[in-house]
């Protein structure tokens, strides 16, 4: 690990965090449903699937795009706390829907990203 790799992660993390911060600002929770975090988590899962298969393993560009950007665009802590807040407000069905939609759409997005990345990697390799 070099200092350049850490800088790449920090730069990617800044950009990913900025995008998530912006998404939660424009997509305010709708009736308590955290739309912004859902979009960030699903989009980030697709992008990470794509990045891990299309970019060379151990490269600084993967550190920037993967661990940095996609890692910071998506979040587990806010996902967890939002579930708790919904449950404390007795919004059990909204909490269950939010969890299931995040995980279901996240799995589909990650699978799609992995497929796209593999296809892209194969078509670019002579």
């Amino acid at each position, binding site marked *: *690990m070099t200092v350049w*790799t*850490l800088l790449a*992660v*920090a*730069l*990617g*993390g*800044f*950009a*990913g*965090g*900025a995008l*998530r*911060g*912006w998404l*939660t*600002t424009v997509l305010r929770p709708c009736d308590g449903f955290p739309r*912004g975090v859902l979009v960030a*988590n699903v989009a*980030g*899962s697709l*992008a*990470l*699937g794509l990045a*891990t298969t299309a970019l060379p393993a151990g490269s600084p560009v993967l*550190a920037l795009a993967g*661990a*940095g950007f*996609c*890692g*910071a*665009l*998506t*979040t*587990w*802590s*806010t*996902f*967890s*706390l*939002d*579930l*708790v*807040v919904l*449950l404390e407000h007795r919004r059990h069905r909204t909490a269950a829907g939010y*969890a299931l939609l*995040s*995980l279901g759409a*996240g*799995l589909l*997005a*990650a*699978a799609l*990203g*992995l497929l796209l990345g593999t296809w892209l990697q194969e078509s670019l390799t002579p």
Partner: protein
Amino acid sequence: MTTPPSAGTHVLLVAAGSAVGAVLRFLLDTAAGGGWAALWTLNLAGAALLGLLTGLLAGRRSARWLAPLLGPGLLGGFTTFSAVLVLTVGSTGPVAAVAQLGAMTLLGALAAWAGLVLARRLHPHGDVPAEARR
């Protein structure tokens, strides 16, 4: 209660915190050799700390800046959703991986709740501010 910072300031605070959180996650993940063990550790620790932080900052003036910087910023960037989902999909045992995903969701919520409950005992006069939850 104080007014939350402008949208642009909020985005910058989250971005700055996320940059530091992402580097800490990368260092921990690399030291642990990657995989599920590292993701369990940092996601549960991050969820518990976010609950604690949100409860402790509730109703404080400093929450205006500190909540976005440390909450969705530092801890949001420290924890990750995408790596867990990609690891689940890429796993050779899909049933066990999906079970771990479900378990991490339940235990993550439990960790965040435990942090929040602890904070309310330490600082009983606050309420969860909206900006800390974004």
